[in-house]
Every structure is written in structure tokens, then in C-alpha cells.
């Protein structure tokens, strides 16, 4: 008898086992692979990110667009607080009472004075207060300027030099003169002098301003510049003096040592007299005194006129005219008899 080897398997048994293993693998491959192909991608579930902020106590702060001015003064405040305040309480007039709960309030100060502004801000962590003593200064109300002016002379021949005088009220600080109403500023002086070189009727516009406001005065036809008077248009009366009747006046010679007068100046008094005579004659012919000529305003007046237009021919016109004429004649006759 041959001894049996205990370490070796029977080849038939091994084959059987290999067969069974192969069948199992085949089975598993067929059954598991389709299932594996339907497997959903893995869902990764993470814990929610909860943001727990680090809330800090707010730090109050504010600014204003304007801190001084005249009443009524409107001020817009801006919250500059830190750490995210959630509510605001403003005492804007310093009376200890809350005037606004807005973040950026607006407030109008109508009474002159110095005002302390207090802002209290709060959030969940706490509150803070900012106080600005005398932060807003309100001055007394300044009335707006009222434009007004006078001019002299207001009428004359070209070139006409006119002196304008500011008569505005409430202390304006700036002046804009448009002396010929062409839309451009001709002077920024308070009392300008302007020479008109062309004849015409000029409208003068004065705009004045101050911190309190602005005003405008427009004078229609304030200045009237006439064409220069020529000899042909207004002939002046002349007096002919016969040469024979003129007395001969000896002309004294200037002393040799004295200052020599330029020859033109010798005629100056005579020129002045002639100019005065011409002016006087001109004014006389216009039927105005010299005082009127300089002091009067332009001769402005309104006229209201009109008429009637008839769409059809005026067949009734003759009758109405003749009837009215007859009535007038009859009236006259009756008045004549009485």
C-alpha cells in the first residue's frame, strides 16, 4: 500500500473547484455590472455653513452738508457710524428730544442760534452716542436784494454817455448790468457809466445778488438815444451883423515874458458860448427847458386803437355814416337854435 500524500489535492477536485469559481465569477459579472452602471454619483452632504458674525458695539458719528448759514437753513445730515447700527435717533435742535429716526435726516432751522446735534445709534450689541456741541450755527434771516436803478440822462443825442446809479435794496453784493438788453453783461460795477454810440431805444436790465438771493429789474425803453442833430435838420436862427457896424476892438498883445497861450485856446470862450447858444436854441425848438431835458423819463405812453373788418361788402356803411352825420347836423342845428 502506497502512502497517501496529505499535501496534494486530488486533480479532479481541483478542477471541480475551478469550474465552480468560474461559474460564480461569471454569474457575479452578469448580475453586478448592470447594477454598478446605475449607481448614482455619491452625494456629499456637508454640514451647513452657519455665519455667526462678530457683532460689535456701534460707534456713532455723523457729518452735515452745511453747518452755518442764515435762516431758514436746511441741513442734510449723513450717518457715519461704524459697526452697522440698526437704529438711529437724532436730536437735531439740542432740546433733548428725538427729532428723527432716519439714517440720513434733513432738518430746517428757521430760528437763528447755535445748535448741538446728538446722534444715538444702536444694534444688537449695544449703543453709542455722538454729541457735537454748537455744530450748526444759524444766522438771522437776510432779506433778498431787490434790484433798482436810475440813469441820467435818459434821453439825448448820440453819442450819449449815461451814468447809471444802483438803487437796489437789501445790500446786494454783485451787480450785472446789461445796458442794451442784448443778453451780454456790459458791466459788473455798482454804478457804471456807459456811452451809447448808436441811436435807438434801449432796455436796461440790472441783476443783483447777495447770499440771500437774486433779483432782476428790467426797464423797457429806459434810454432813448437820438440821431445827432445836423444843421440841415434843425436850422438855427442866425443874426447877420453888418461888418461896418462892428466896433473895432484893439487886441492886446500878450506880454513877452508871460506864458505863451496856444493859439487854439484863444477861441475856447467863444466856442463855449456858441455851444451854449446852440444847445439853448435846440432845446427851445423842442419846446423843452434844459431842466426837463435832463430830468424827464422817456415819453412813454400806451395807445389803444382798433377797427372792424367785415367779411362781406359794406353795403350798410354809407347809410350808417350818413345817418350819423345827419344826426350830428341835427344836434348842431338844435344847439344853434337854443
Amino acid at each position: 500500500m502506497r502512502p497517501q500524500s496529505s499535501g496534494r489535492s486530488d486533480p479532479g477536485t481541483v478542477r471541480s473547484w475551478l469550474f465552480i469559481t468560474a461559474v460564480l465569477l461569471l454569474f457575479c459579472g452578469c448580475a453586478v455590472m448592470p447594477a454598478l452602471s446605475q449607481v448614482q454619483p455619491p452625494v456629499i452632504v456637508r454640514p451647513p455653513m452657519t455665519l455667526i458674525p462678530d457683532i460689535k458695539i456701534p460707534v456713532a458719528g455723523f457729518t452735515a452738508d452745511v453747518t452755518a448759514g442764515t435762516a431758514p437753513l436746511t441741513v442734510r445730515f449723513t450717518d457715519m457710524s461704524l459697526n452697522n447700527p440698526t437704529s438711529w435717533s437724532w436730536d437735531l435742535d439740542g432740546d433733548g428730544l428725538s427729532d428723527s429716526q432716519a439714517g440720513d435726516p434733513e432738518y430746517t432751522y428757521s430760528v437763528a442760534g447755535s445748535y448741538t446735534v446728538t446722534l444715538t445709534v444702536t444694534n444688537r450689541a449695544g449703543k453709542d452716542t455722538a454729541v457735537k456741541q454748537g455744530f450748526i450755527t444759524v444766522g438771522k434771516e437776510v432779506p433778498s436784494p431787490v434790484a433798482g436803478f436810475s440813469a441820467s440822462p435818459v434821453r439825448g443825442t448820440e453819442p450819449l454817455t449815461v451814468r447809471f446809479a444802483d438803487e437796489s435794496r437789501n445790500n446786494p453784493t454783485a451787480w450785472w448790468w446789461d445796458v442794451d438788453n442784448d443778453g451780454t453783461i456790459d458791466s459788473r460795477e455798482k454804478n457804471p457809466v456807459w456811452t451809447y454810440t448808436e441811436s435807438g431805444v434801449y432796455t436796461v436790465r440790472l441783476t443783483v445778488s447777495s447770499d440771500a438771493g437774486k433779483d432782476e429789474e428790467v426797464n423797457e425803453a429806459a434810454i432813448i438815444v437820438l440821431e445827432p442833430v445836423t444843421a440841415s435838420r434843425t436850422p438855427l436862427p442866425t443874426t447877420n451883423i453888418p461888418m461896418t457896424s462892428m466896433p473895432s476892438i484893439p487886441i492886446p498883445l500878450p506880454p513877452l515874458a508871460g506864458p505863451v497861450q496856444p493859439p487854439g485856446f484863444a477861441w475856447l470862450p467863444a466856442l463855449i458860448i456858441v455851444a451854449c447858444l446852440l444847445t439853448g436854441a435846440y432845446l427851445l425848438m423842442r419846446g423843452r427847458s434844459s431842466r426837463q431835458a435832463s430830468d424827464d423819463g422817456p415819453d412813454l405812453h400806451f395807445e389803444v386803437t382798433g377797427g372792424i373788418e367785415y367779411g362781406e361788402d359794406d353795403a350798410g356803411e354809407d347809410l350808417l355814416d350818413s345817418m350819423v352825420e345827419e344826426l350830428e347836423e341835427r344836434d348842431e342845428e338844435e344847439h344853434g337854435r337854443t
Partner: protein
Amino acid sequence: MVVLEPSPEIVEEVAAMLKKGSIPALREAGNRVRKTPAPSLKSIDIPAEFQKLLSSYLTTGLVRLSIQKVQASDELQQSLQDSRSAYTILLHRLPVLRLPEYSPYITIALKSGATEIWQAETTFSVTALVTLRNTLVTLREEKLREFRFGSLNAGMSIYLKKGPIEEALHSFKRDLTIPGMMAGEK
């Protein structure tokens, strides 16, 4: 052009119309009066002048066109042919007269001496229906010599001309008296 004294009733109606403030030229004139420094200028009552003139023109137009219509009527044409010597006829009732449209206009001008500085013309358009009773007409030598209203009832509409469009301003219907042209007057 003869302009009649305004009918007092028309004066009333024009005053009511102008009270509405619908005439731009009057507003502009008022602004200019306020702006102009000359004290003498401010004393001029432009609305009153405007009212007076417009009332006169409305009256004159109404009368003139009424006479024209009566003159053109068959009754009068017949009578005119037999009027070698003067005689007066009484027209008891005439058919309602639809007057042709007429257009009074008023010009407001601001002047410095003879120089015109500003002016605005306001043109109106007027339509009227006129009912005449007991009208006395005197004829002589184939012409109308005198015309007297017994009673005159007018329905009148006044429009403001604004370029191609017309704005209705005022309408009324009432008995009117025409100074110097009523039968009862001396």
C-alpha cells in the same frame, strides 16, 4: 369809419368777458405797466380803454350789418322803388337775421414819442343772430335815410382769433339798446 356809442348791455357783456382774463395782450400790457418806471404811464387804464373800444366796435358791427340785412330784404327793396318823396315805414316783424361774421380788432401799443416799442393786436370774430321788432325806416329818393330800432334782441358769440384757430370767449342773448338809434328816443 363811424363808430357808434356802445350799447350799455354790450358793455356789460364785454366787461364780464374781460374779467375772465383771457386776452393775452391785456396781460402783457399789464406786465409792462408794472415794469415801467414812468409814473404817468401807470395811470392809464388800458383794460377800460380796451373794453370801451371793443364794446363800440361790437355795437357798430351789429348795427351796420343789421341795417345791411334789412336794406337787402325784399320788403324794403320794393318800398325803395316808390320812395321819391320821403316816407317812413314800420316793419313789425322781420325774419331772424343771421349777420355775416365780422372781426373787430384792438391794438395796444407802447410808444416812446413816435417810436413804437411794443404792440399787440387782438382780433375777435363775432357771429350774431338778430331779431328786430317794430323797426322804423325812413326812405327818400330811393335811399334809406333813417333807421330806428323798435326792439333789438341779439344772440352774439365772440371768439378770439389765434392764428388759424378761434377760441370761444363769450356768448349771450339779450335785448339791446343802441344809444341814438332806438325808436322811442328823441
